Protein backbone atom coordinates (compact mmCIF):
# COMPACT_ATOMS: atom_id res chain seq x y z
CA UNK A 1 0.00 0.00 0.00
CA UNK A 2 1.40 3.35 -1.03
CA UNK A 3 1.09 6.26 1.34
CA UNK A 4 0.05 9.29 -0.75
CA UNK A 5 0.32 12.88 0.43
CA UNK A 6 -1.02 15.79 -1.65
CA UNK A 7 -0.49 19.36 -0.50
CA UNK A 8 -1.61 22.52 -2.32
CA UNK A 9 -0.56 25.57 -0.32
CA UNK A 10 0.27 29.22 -0.66
CA UNK A 11 3.00 29.29 2.02
CA UNK A 12 6.66 28.50 1.27
CA UNK A 13 7.70 24.93 2.07
CA UNK A 14 10.93 23.60 3.52
CA UNK A 15 12.33 21.39 0.74
CA UNK A 16 15.17 20.13 2.95
CA UNK A 17 12.86 19.15 5.80
CA UNK A 18 10.48 17.36 3.40
CA UNK A 19 13.39 15.45 1.85
CA UNK A 20 14.78 14.53 5.28
CA UNK A 21 11.42 13.20 6.45
CA UNK A 22 11.02 11.22 3.25
CA UNK A 23 14.43 9.57 3.59
CA UNK A 24 13.48 8.21 7.00
CA UNK A 25 11.13 5.71 5.34
CA UNK A 26 10.42 2.19 6.52
CA UNK A 27 12.46 -1.01 6.25
CA UNK A 28 11.33 -1.56 2.65
CA UNK A 29 12.58 1.84 1.41
CA UNK A 30 15.92 1.62 -0.35
CA UNK A 31 15.63 4.54 -2.77
CA UNK A 32 14.21 8.04 -2.53
CA UNK A 33 13.97 10.45 -5.46
CA UNK A 34 12.94 14.06 -4.97
CA UNK A 35 12.33 16.85 -7.46
CA UNK A 36 12.10 20.56 -6.73
CA UNK A 37 10.92 23.17 -9.23
CA UNK A 38 12.28 26.68 -8.75
CA UNK A 39 11.31 30.06 -10.26
CA UNK A 40 14.01 30.75 -12.85
CA UNK A 41 15.10 34.15 -14.05
CA UNK A 42 17.30 33.51 -17.09
CA UNK A 43 17.14 37.04 -18.38
CA UNK A 44 17.36 38.91 -15.08
CA UNK A 45 14.10 40.74 -15.84
CA UNK A 46 11.56 38.65 -13.94
CA UNK A 47 9.99 40.52 -11.04
CA UNK A 48 7.45 37.95 -9.92
CA UNK A 49 5.42 34.91 -10.91
CA UNK A 50 1.81 34.32 -9.98
CA UNK A 51 0.42 30.80 -9.89
CA UNK A 52 -3.32 30.41 -10.31
CA UNK A 53 -5.01 27.07 -9.72
CA UNK A 54 -8.46 25.46 -9.59
CA UNK A 55 -9.18 24.66 -5.95
CA UNK A 56 -10.84 21.28 -5.64
CA UNK A 57 -9.86 20.03 -9.07
CA UNK A 58 -6.18 20.56 -8.27
CA UNK A 59 -6.21 18.17 -5.31
CA UNK A 60 -8.36 15.74 -7.27
CA UNK A 61 -6.04 15.76 -10.32
CA UNK A 62 -2.88 15.41 -8.23
CA UNK A 63 -4.38 12.50 -6.28
CA UNK A 64 -5.29 10.71 -9.52
CA UNK A 65 -1.76 11.21 -10.88
CA UNK A 66 -0.21 9.89 -7.64
CA UNK A 67 -2.56 6.90 -7.62
CA UNK A 68 -1.66 6.10 -11.21
CA UNK A 69 2.05 6.16 -10.28
CA UNK A 70 1.33 3.83 -7.35
CA UNK A 71 -0.43 1.43 -9.75
CA UNK A 72 2.46 1.41 -12.21
CA UNK A 73 5.38 1.08 -9.79
CA UNK A 74 5.96 -0.47 -6.40
CA UNK A 75 6.15 2.58 -4.15
CA UNK A 76 6.03 2.89 -0.39
CA UNK A 77 5.33 6.63 -0.45
CA UNK A 78 4.47 9.50 -2.80
CA UNK A 79 4.42 13.21 -2.03
CA UNK A 80 3.22 16.00 -4.33
CA UNK A 81 3.37 19.52 -2.99
CA UNK A 82 2.54 22.56 -5.14
CA UNK A 83 2.28 26.21 -4.18
CA UNK A 84 0.01 28.88 -5.62
CA UNK A 85 -0.07 32.66 -5.34
CA UNK A 86 2.77 35.14 -5.86
CA UNK A 87 6.37 33.91 -6.03
CA UNK A 88 9.72 35.60 -6.55
CA UNK A 89 12.72 34.40 -8.64
CA UNK A 90 14.64 31.69 -6.77
CA UNK A 91 11.60 30.62 -4.73
CA UNK A 92 10.63 26.96 -4.65
CA UNK A 93 7.39 26.36 -6.59
CA UNK A 94 6.71 22.70 -5.98
CA UNK A 95 8.20 19.31 -5.25
CA UNK A 96 7.52 15.64 -5.72
CA UNK A 97 9.11 12.74 -3.87
CA UNK A 98 8.86 8.98 -4.32
CA UNK A 99 10.15 6.13 -2.15
CA UNK A 100 10.64 2.57 -3.34
CA UNK A 101 12.73 -0.50 -2.64
CA UNK A 102 14.65 0.04 -5.89
CA UNK A 103 16.13 3.06 -7.63
CA UNK A 104 14.66 2.41 -11.08
CA UNK A 105 11.10 2.59 -9.73
CA UNK A 106 11.77 5.68 -7.63
CA UNK A 107 13.28 7.48 -10.65
CA UNK A 108 10.64 6.45 -13.19
CA UNK A 109 7.72 7.32 -10.92
CA UNK A 110 9.06 10.78 -9.99
CA UNK A 111 9.70 11.53 -13.67
CA UNK A 112 6.16 10.33 -14.51
CA UNK A 113 4.60 12.47 -11.76
CA UNK A 114 6.32 15.56 -13.15
CA UNK A 115 5.28 14.90 -16.75
CA UNK A 116 1.65 14.40 -15.78
CA UNK A 117 1.56 17.24 -13.30
CA UNK A 118 2.86 19.66 -15.98
CA UNK A 119 0.05 18.98 -18.43
CA UNK A 120 -2.79 17.51 -16.38
CA UNK A 121 -2.97 19.45 -13.11
CA UNK A 122 -4.82 22.80 -13.26
CA UNK A 123 -2.07 25.33 -12.57
CA UNK A 124 -1.30 28.40 -14.66
CA UNK A 125 1.74 30.64 -14.39
CA UNK A 126 1.76 34.37 -15.06
CA UNK A 127 5.09 36.19 -15.24
CA UNK A 128 5.59 39.85 -14.47
CA UNK A 129 8.62 41.73 -15.80
CA UNK A 130 9.22 45.46 -15.97
CA UNK A 131 7.66 45.26 -19.46
CA UNK A 132 4.37 43.89 -18.14
CA UNK A 133 2.59 40.65 -17.27
CA UNK A 134 1.90 37.62 -19.42
CA UNK A 135 0.68 34.06 -19.05
CA UNK A 136 3.28 31.38 -19.63
CA UNK A 137 2.40 29.38 -22.77
CA UNK A 138 2.20 25.60 -22.55
CA UNK A 139 4.97 23.83 -24.44
CA UNK A 140 4.22 21.23 -27.10
CA UNK A 141 7.14 19.25 -25.65
CA UNK A 142 5.32 18.96 -22.32
CA UNK A 143 2.27 17.41 -23.96
CA UNK A 144 4.53 15.20 -26.07
CA UNK A 145 6.35 13.97 -22.95
CA UNK A 146 3.21 12.11 -21.87
CA UNK A 147 3.68 9.70 -24.77
CA UNK A 148 6.73 8.28 -22.95
CA UNK A 149 4.41 6.59 -20.47
Amino acid sequence: MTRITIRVEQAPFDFGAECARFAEGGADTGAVVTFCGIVRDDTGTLESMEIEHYPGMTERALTKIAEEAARRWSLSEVLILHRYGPLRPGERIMMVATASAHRAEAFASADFLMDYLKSRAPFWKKETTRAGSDWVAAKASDEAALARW
Partner: protein
Amino acid sequence: MKLDVLYFAWLRERIGCARETVETEAGTVMALVEELRAREERYALAFSDLSALRVAIDQDLRDFDAPLTDAREVAFFPPMTGG
Protein backbone atom coordinates in the same frame (compact mmCIF):
# COMPACT_ATOMS: atom_id res chain seq x y z
CA MET B 1 -30.58 23.21 -15.77
CA LYS B 2 -28.31 25.46 -13.71
CA LEU B 3 -24.58 25.14 -14.26
CA ASP B 4 -21.67 26.77 -12.46
CA VAL B 5 -19.29 27.89 -15.19
CA LEU B 6 -15.71 28.72 -14.20
CA TYR B 7 -12.92 30.49 -16.12
CA PHE B 8 -9.21 30.49 -15.34
CA ALA B 9 -6.01 32.31 -16.32
CA TRP B 10 -6.23 34.47 -19.49
CA LEU B 11 -9.73 33.15 -20.23
CA ARG B 12 -10.90 34.56 -16.89
CA GLU B 13 -9.24 37.88 -17.70
CA ARG B 14 -10.74 38.12 -21.20
CA ILE B 15 -14.24 37.27 -20.07
CA GLY B 16 -13.80 39.45 -17.00
CA CYS B 17 -15.34 36.98 -14.60
CA ALA B 18 -14.10 33.93 -12.64
CA ARG B 19 -17.39 32.16 -12.08
CA GLU B 20 -21.02 32.56 -13.11
CA THR B 21 -24.20 30.54 -12.94
CA VAL B 22 -25.69 29.72 -16.33
CA GLU B 23 -29.23 28.54 -17.05
CA THR B 24 -28.94 26.24 -20.08
CA GLU B 25 -30.39 23.24 -21.85
CA ALA B 26 -27.13 22.53 -23.70
CA GLY B 27 -26.56 18.79 -24.12
CA THR B 28 -22.80 18.95 -24.65
CA VAL B 29 -19.88 21.20 -23.79
CA MET B 30 -19.80 22.31 -27.44
CA ALA B 31 -23.46 23.37 -27.30
CA LEU B 32 -22.72 25.34 -24.13
CA VAL B 33 -19.78 27.04 -25.86
CA GLU B 34 -22.07 28.05 -28.75
CA GLU B 35 -24.54 29.60 -26.29
CA LEU B 36 -21.75 31.53 -24.56
CA ARG B 37 -20.28 32.72 -27.88
CA ALA B 38 -23.71 34.06 -28.88
CA ARG B 39 -23.99 36.14 -25.70
CA GLU B 40 -21.43 38.89 -26.16
CA GLU B 41 -18.36 39.80 -28.17
CA ARG B 42 -15.98 39.13 -25.25
CA TYR B 43 -17.24 35.51 -25.04
CA ALA B 44 -17.01 35.07 -28.81
CA LEU B 45 -13.41 36.31 -28.75
CA ALA B 46 -12.43 34.26 -25.70
CA PHE B 47 -13.83 31.06 -27.25
CA SER B 48 -12.66 31.78 -30.81
CA ASP B 49 -9.93 29.08 -30.83
CA LEU B 50 -10.97 25.97 -28.92
CA SER B 51 -7.66 24.22 -29.66
CA ALA B 52 -6.14 26.71 -27.18
CA LEU B 53 -8.65 25.71 -24.48
CA ARG B 54 -9.32 22.81 -22.16
CA VAL B 55 -12.55 21.88 -20.38
CA ALA B 56 -13.34 20.08 -17.14
CA ILE B 57 -16.74 18.74 -16.11
CA ASP B 58 -17.15 18.41 -12.36
CA GLN B 59 -13.38 18.73 -12.00
CA ASP B 60 -12.42 16.02 -14.50
CA LEU B 61 -10.73 16.87 -17.81
CA ARG B 62 -13.09 16.07 -20.72
CA ASP B 63 -13.42 16.66 -24.48
CA PHE B 64 -15.57 19.42 -25.96
CA ASP B 65 -18.04 16.85 -27.29
CA ALA B 66 -18.65 15.41 -23.80
CA PRO B 67 -22.32 15.34 -22.66
CA LEU B 68 -23.41 17.62 -19.82
CA THR B 69 -25.81 15.10 -18.30
CA ASP B 70 -25.86 15.56 -14.50
CA ALA B 71 -23.06 18.13 -14.73
CA ARG B 72 -22.99 20.78 -11.98
CA GLU B 73 -19.69 22.56 -12.68
CA VAL B 74 -18.02 23.22 -16.04
CA ALA B 75 -14.61 24.91 -16.16
CA PHE B 76 -12.79 26.39 -19.16
CA PHE B 77 -9.09 27.24 -19.16
CA PRO B 78 -5.91 27.32 -21.26
CA PRO B 79 -3.48 24.36 -21.30
CA MET B 80 -1.89 23.92 -17.88
CA THR B 81 1.57 25.18 -17.05
CA GLY B 82 2.30 23.91 -13.54
CA GLY B 83 5.39 22.24 -12.16
